[in-house]
């Protein structure tokens, strides 16, 4: 090759890499920083980290202090949930299963409660033995399933033409949205017993679920209201002209459409709820983060914060991602083409 051409080519390369703009300089700088960080992290992973804190406590992370010989029960529940997620993302061709997916999802709650609490032939387990991922999932699923219908109801009440219904529901929604979640959970754990008649007691786990439901339903109501407002008025007019009554309009026109529009927001609520169950670790339930805290308090594993936190973060991250994937699939399926 001609030396002049080589020179020209080198100049061209340099121009692309560096002299073109500040942008490329920034790229080089960022790449070198990332490489240095990656090298350091790998170094730590291979030489300095000790993962025995995770591997020796893996069943504690998953099931808490659930009785050893009964651990197959939460295991079955979690597996069934995961397989249901899998079926939702990659649906098989069977039509009956596709149609009954929603029923299957709702059915996981009684199944979970039966498997966890026992009774009907299974050995009963006290709720104070629940813990770890099982408890986190129980809190998330129960509260979101209870909060959804309440949220829908509140959204309709807020849109209602009846003055008092409208006012009451908007006071409820606005005040719930103004209060931090931890205060509501605190209310659930410490104040609900004060409001109950003498001798009546609610289990701690159910008090937590109740508090989460109160909180999340207000947020869901606002999301659904957004969906309701996005439905064009012509839909209601045409339903009226078809002779549908009020109930039928709500049931067949408004709820399905507003749910579909609000689905992305609802997904965010569900993911937020899943993450927020970690707050219960401050208020005395040993869910996933709570287990992590109690393991770190064990003198045997003292100071291994990074390993435990990275492990917990990856579990939370993984489950949030699964939830987002399921929601994305739902969105795609519900889309009108």
């Amino acid at each position, binding site marked *: 090759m001609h030396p002049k051409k080589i020179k020209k080519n080198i100049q061209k390369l340099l121009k692309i890499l560096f002299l073109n703009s500040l942008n490329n300089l920034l790229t080089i700088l960022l790449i070198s920083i990332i490489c240095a960080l990656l090298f350091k992290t790998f170094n730590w992973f291979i030489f300095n980290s000790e993962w025995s804190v995770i591997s020796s406590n893996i069943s504690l992370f998953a099931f808490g202090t659930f009785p050893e010989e009964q651990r197959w029960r939460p295991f079955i529940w979690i597996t069934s949930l995961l397989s249901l997620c899998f079926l939702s993302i990659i649906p098989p061709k069977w039509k009956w299963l596709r149609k009954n997916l929603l029923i299957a999802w709702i059915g996981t709650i009684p199944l979970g409660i039966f498997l966890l609490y026992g009774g009907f032939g299974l050995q009963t387990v006290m709720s104070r033995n629940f813990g770890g991922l099982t408890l986190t999932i129980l809190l998330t699923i129960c509260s979101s399933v209870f909060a959804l219908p309440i949220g829908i109801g509140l959204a309709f009440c807020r849109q209602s033409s009846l003055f008092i219904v409208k006012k009451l529901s908007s006071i409820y929604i606005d005040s719930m949205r103004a*209060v*931090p979640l931890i205060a509501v959970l605190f209310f659930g754990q410490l104040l609900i017993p004060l*409001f109950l008649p003498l001798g009546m007691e609610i289990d701690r786990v159910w008090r937590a679920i109740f508090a989460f439901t109160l909180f999340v339903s207000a947020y869901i109501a606002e999301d659904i209201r957004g969906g309701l407002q996005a439905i064009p008025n012509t839909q209601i007019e045409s339903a009226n002209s078809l002779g549908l009554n009020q109930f039928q309009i709500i049931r067949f026109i408004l709820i399905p459409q507003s749910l579909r529009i609000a689905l992305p927001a609802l997904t965010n609520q569900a993911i937020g709820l899943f*993450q927020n169950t970690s707050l219960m670790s401050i208020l005395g339930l040993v869910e996933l*983060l709570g287990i992590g805290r109690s393991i770190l308090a064990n003198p045997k594993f003292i100071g291994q914060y990074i390993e435990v936190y990275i492990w917990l973060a990856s579990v939370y991250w993984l489950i949030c991602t699964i939830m987002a994937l399921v929601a994305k699939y739902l969105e795609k399926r519900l889309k009108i083409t």
Partner: protein
Amino acid sequence: MKRNKGIIFQLIIILSFISIFGFLINNLIINLIRTDLGFNFSWLLKPSSFALAEHALPYSPSDSYAWALLIGWLNSLKVIFISLFLSTILGIMIGLSRTGKNTILNIISSFYITIIRQTPLLLQLMFWYFVGFLGLKNNFLYFSNLFKINNQGIEFFGLSFTSEFSALIIGLSVFTSAFIGEVIRGGIISVPKGQWESFRSLGISESNGLIRVIIPQALPAIIPGLTNQFLNLAKNSTLAIAIGYSDIYAINDTIINQTGRAIECFIILLFTFLILNLLITNLMETINKLINKKKIYIN
């Protein structure tokens, strides 16, 4: 006929609401009498007899509970406004790098957003506190006397922050910035592409065009989302209790543990947050008005 139906329906709702409420209040009164606590606020003036590591105004354990609550409120405000400022700056950087042309920056910022948004804030706060600060060596970063970072906290130019405070600020700012970044990205995307093309064709530089042309048009879409994130930030600041920072919630919790006045403290907490929310909403509304005044109307 229909109108009457509505009124009767509302009456039924009011009656059932009152009866449920009355039932609960009745239970509450019975329980309060049984536990010998009653309901009053006179305990607020008694000496608190607990120490606070962090106080903006002079405070000693012999001061009253009310004073301790005020100190807690100031601590909360301090955290909220500093992290509000920091998270906005960080969020703008993330939002811009997410919409910008640089591929590496794009990848980094989307990675940052997925990591931060998919893990619980509480876990992040604990990470920043136990790993980020308590895990540091005694002289991690030392720059004469002007700038120091170690397991005692951050110190620069004579200002010193405790490790709890610093961890809380960093954790809240990092968490909120990921959400703010998405809000800002949404705002910038909402500006039609023609605007970009037209300022480029006029020979305006990229950065100048972004500041003068794109951002002013994106702001109306950004402000409501930003307000929401600020309100969330204020609510999330109550997680300070997990790392031992004495904010308003933590002090309420301590008082409840000492005196058992759960109901009264809860009411105080609710009112504090009502005031805080009003404060932030009004602040954002003023900003919104200022922006709207300066807005140049297109079409």
